[in-house]
Structure formats: structure tokens, C-alpha cells
């Protein structure tokens, strides 16, 4: 059986800031043929999406979590994600507005990466690539295929 469309790579991003959600969607625009950005606006919604992934459903190729979110913050979500065996191979990035060394340490403790939110566009243009760098080699090649 052949597929009409190649399978999409899901980038899952949780952030309560609508402006940042929009900017990250925009940052992945160049990869829109190969990447689908799915978003959540708080930690509980993020966790609910991830918990409800069924066997056979595509897993996100990367999970990006804002730290300061209502209901459940990004660090809490990260800890819960690390309890989910089926997500063990999925890279997680804590995406924060400031570069707090304690947050970086926390990310490392839970096998996650840490990226500071850009302040201006020049940095923003590179952000999708910085996220993709953390994907596996196979996913990276698939995403960058035109």
C-alpha cells in the first residue's frame, strides 16, 4: 500500500502566551510540508494530549514546553512525560523567557534540553532549526527533506 502523503512530523508545543505560540508556528512555516505544529495553552492540556496518544498514533518528534504556564507548569509536565515509557525516545525542550541556570539544571536532570526564548527576529529565524537539531538524525532528515 502506498501513502498519498508522507507521514507528518508532529512538533508539540505548549505555551500560554498566544504571541509565542504564533511565533513558533511561524518559525516552522518553512517546514510546513513536513511538520505539523500541535499546540496546547497550559500544562494540563499538554499532559492530556500526550496521555491520550494511542498505540499506532504518530508520536511527536519533539515536545517543546514553556516553563511558566498556568494549571501545570512546564517542569511538572516534563516530570510526568518522563514517567511515560512510550515517550522515552522523544526529545523534550524547556523553552523559557530567561536563561535561569537552575532551570537548565532541571532540564538536564530530566533528560531534556533548554532553550531561551529569542528577544528579536534574528534569533527567532533560527529557532526552528535549533529545535530540529534536538530531533533524531532520521527525523531531522525527514523534516528537512523538500
Amino acid at each position, binding site marked *: 500500500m502506498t501513502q498519498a502523503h508522507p507521514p507528518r512530523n508532529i512538533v508539540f508545543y505548549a505555551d500560554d502566551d498566544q*504571541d509565542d505560540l504564533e511565533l513558533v508556528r511561524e518559525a516552522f512555516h518553512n517546514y510546513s510540508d513536513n511538520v505539523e505544529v500541535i499546540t496546547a495553552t497550559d500544562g494540563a492540556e499538554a499532559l492530556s494530549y500526550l496521555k491520550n496518544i494511542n498505540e499506532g498514533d504518530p508520536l511527536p518528534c519533539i515536545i517543546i514546553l514553556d516553563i511558566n504556564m498556568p494549571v501545570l507548569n512546564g517542569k511538572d509536565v516534563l516530570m510526568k512525560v518522563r514517567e511515560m515509557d512510550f515517550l522515552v525516545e522523544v526529545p523534550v525542550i524547556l523553552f*523559557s523567557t530567561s536563561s535561569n541556570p537552575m532551570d537548565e539544571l532541571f532540564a538536564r536532570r530530566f533528560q531534556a534540553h533548554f532553550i531561551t526564548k*529569542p*528577544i*528579536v*527576529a534574528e534569533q*527567532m529565524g533560527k529557532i526552528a532549526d535549533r529545535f530540529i537539531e534536538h530531533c533524531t538524525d532520521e527525523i531531522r532528515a525527514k523534516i528537512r527533506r523538500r
Partner: protein
Amino acid sequence: MKYNEFEELSEEEKVAVLYADALYIGKRKVNGRPAILYQLDTFYVEVLYLKYRKYIARFIATDDLTILDPYLEQIKIESFV
């Protein structure tokens, strides 16, 4: 670094310093445009955007604590929502 030394930096240098070392305090709207307040060493820097994270209108660097007021007001309001 002191706030008057920060003011002497180019825009590129200000962005680099904030990106590397600043602590995020809060976000608000000023005349409908976004602003972000950071703490850097012993002073504060408010970044006023023309377009969020795309074009910066200006930086306000100060050690005057009243710059925190609108952000603290926001926290008070949010805690009641």
C-alpha cells in the same frame, strides 16, 4: 554592569546581554504593543516592541523600582481571575 553602562551598548549588544543573562519578570501591553521586563544585575530593562519579538522600539533601563508597578498590578489582577 550598571544601567547607565547598559544604555551605552548598541542594540545588538543589549539584546545579546539580555539573552544571556537577564531574568524575565513579566509581560504587558503599552498602548496596545507588547513590552517585556527583565532584571539584569541590580537594575531592570523594559523592552518595548513595535512588533512582538520582531522589532524593538526601545529599551528602558533603570534602577527605579517603580518600573515594577504595572507588572505587579497585573499579578494582583491575575490572582483574582
